[in-house]
């Protein structure tokens, strides 16, 4: 398994709260191979954004390991950590706040080289920046412009160029298109896919939009209250979901085809997501689950392959339900 570029084991992040702790990420194991895209979906509060921050070092894990090419980042320090971190970069959600308004585009994309001087290519920083602009489909002559002179989609391209500067193998994309207009989303998604093909990038693609995730991902992990509840390749998750939460999530996504009206299997969940400061005992989804039995409160279901689930699913009663049936 030498092609695994990123791996987490038992990753935990608890935030101190007034009473107890908010268990934002509570034991996440994942693997990312070279050149593949792992989609992570879930609703707000499921911990997917905290997971992203842990992966790129914006937060320190409470427990667990983050291995980049086999090296555990949580045990590294100093120069070794800096070098390892270079391999994993991030594209942020909001193109309007993720670029410093007081810096020119050239300075923004060139900043990684100012921080890591040994990463500057031989032909110089200026040319490297222009090359990056060209790669993401922007005019290389615009290096002296400021972010507010660009549209949302163009700004997101600038953010992607910045993430590419240090030639990472892994890019964590946290909702990279959700702030963009529909017609611009496709441009950015295609750009990300093209870059992956040409540069062999591996993506951790975090989004709440299940359609976008299906389009771009090879494998998908579904998160609920800090844990992965189901994971598998895209066909397994979208066509043969076995966890009730995945099924409910998929059935709730509106599909742009009015002919499906009334013919889809709608699962309406009751109530809201419980607070991660005080998650339910046992299975965390049991408070909203229609399959829940008394035993679900006592025994936490592990994320594993089960009798009726050919891919890992964290439900005692995992079973395929075709919520996405087409006709």
């Amino acid at each position, binding site marked *: 398994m030498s092609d695994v570029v990123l791996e987490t084991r038992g990753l935990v992040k608890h935030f101190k709260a007034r009473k107890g702790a908010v268990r934002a990420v509570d034991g996440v194991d994942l693997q990312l191979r070279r050149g593949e895209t792992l989609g992570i979906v879930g609703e707000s509060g499921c911990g997917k954004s905290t997971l992203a921050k842990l992966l*790129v*070092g*914006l937060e320190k894990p409470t427990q667990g390991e983050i291995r980049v090419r086999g090296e555990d980042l949580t045990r590294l320090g100093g120069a070794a950590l*800096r070098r390892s*971190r*270079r391999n994993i*970069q*991030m594209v*942020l*959600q*909001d193109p309007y*706040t*993720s*670029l*410093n*308004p*007081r*810096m*020119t585009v050239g300075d923004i994309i060139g*900043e*990684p080289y*100012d*921080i*890591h001087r040994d990463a500057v290519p031989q032909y110089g920083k200026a040319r490297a920046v222009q090359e990056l602009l060209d790669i993401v*489909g*922007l*005019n290389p002559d*615009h290096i*002296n*412009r*400021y972010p*507010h*002179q*660009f*549209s949302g*989609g*163009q700004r997101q391209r600038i*953010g992607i160029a*910045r993430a590419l500067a*240090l030639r990472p193998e892994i890019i964590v994309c946290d909702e990279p298109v959700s702030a963009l207009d529909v017609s*611009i989303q496709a*441009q950015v998604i*295609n*750009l990300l896919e*093209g870059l992956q093909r040409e540069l062999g990038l591996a993506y951790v693609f975090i989004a709440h939009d299940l359609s976008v995730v299906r389009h771009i991902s090879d494998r998908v992990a579904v998160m609920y209250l800090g844990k992965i509840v189901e994971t598998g390749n895209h066909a397994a998750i979208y066509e043969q979901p076995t966890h009730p939460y995945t099924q409910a999530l998929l059935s709730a996504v509106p599909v742009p085809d009015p002919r499906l009206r009334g013919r889809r299997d709608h699962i309406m969940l009751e109530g809201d997501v419980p607070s991660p400061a005080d998650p339910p005992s046992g299975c965390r989804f049991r408070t909203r689950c229609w399959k829940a039995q008394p035993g679900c409160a006592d025994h936490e279901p592990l994320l594993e392959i089960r009798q009726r689930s050919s891919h890992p699913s964290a439900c005692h009663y995992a079973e395929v339900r075709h919520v996405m049936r087409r006709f």
Partner: protein
Amino acid sequence: MSDRNATVEAPKPTGGKPRSLAGDAWLDLRTRKIFWIAAVLVVVVLLMAAWPSLFTSADPKDCLLARKNAGAGGGAPFGYDFQGCDVYAKTVYGARDSILVGVAATLIAGVIGLVVGLLAGYFGRWVDAVLSRFVDIVLAIPFILGAIVLARRLSSDPESNGVFAVIVTLGVLGWTTAARVMRSAVISAKNQDYVAAARMLGASPARLMLRHILPNAVSPFIVVLTVLLGVNIAGEATLSYLGVGLKGDAVSWGLAIAEAGPFARTAAAPLVWPSVFLAATVLAFIMLGDAIRDAFDPKLR
């Protein structure tokens, strides 16, 4: 490559040249009447401070008791004071020390405020707790009382004209608002995504503070300093009037007001004119601060 090039977006038609945020603010300022009024006043006062001889050929220290309280005329448009000095010349020359004190005191306050606010806002936790309590303590000192004590202490040398003492007094007591504004601006800038992005790249705290946070936190701070400049000019006048400010051979508006005070009933002009100049200058700086704040405020765009 070809399919990607097909997705290139046309450049946004913002009309030509790159504009920085400051450039944008300038475009906005240009259309404001209040900015121009304030700016003209400030420029006139600064010219007066730098080259008073441009405005008058009279010497403010050329005083003849024979002209005591004489009316306007003979090259002295505001008349003469109780010592027979030219009121207009004194007022013009008074600009220099008033402005000098105001600018220097504001610079001192600015430097203290910037450092305290930046450190407290950026590091948070115990650094913030300690520095914020320190701000509270300075703020709790009654300004006039503190200033009198401090200024008197600093100008114990009978030879000095008191300029240094007043500058230090106003500077040391006046930085708290600037520090608080800086702190809150730093806190809000610190939580922006672009700071996270730089942190992710491994940027050092110094780089984060100086390159990413400071440039985005500095505009409310500058507004406060502009207003503070006006306040410090008035502060000089107050201290001089109370007898702990400028003295000796210094010429300033505050001093002129202090000297003219007791004779106000018999001769109003020596009191009125320096007061008018003082009020106009203070107002000009405050208006300037207001206009700049509006121009920089992204919510109004």
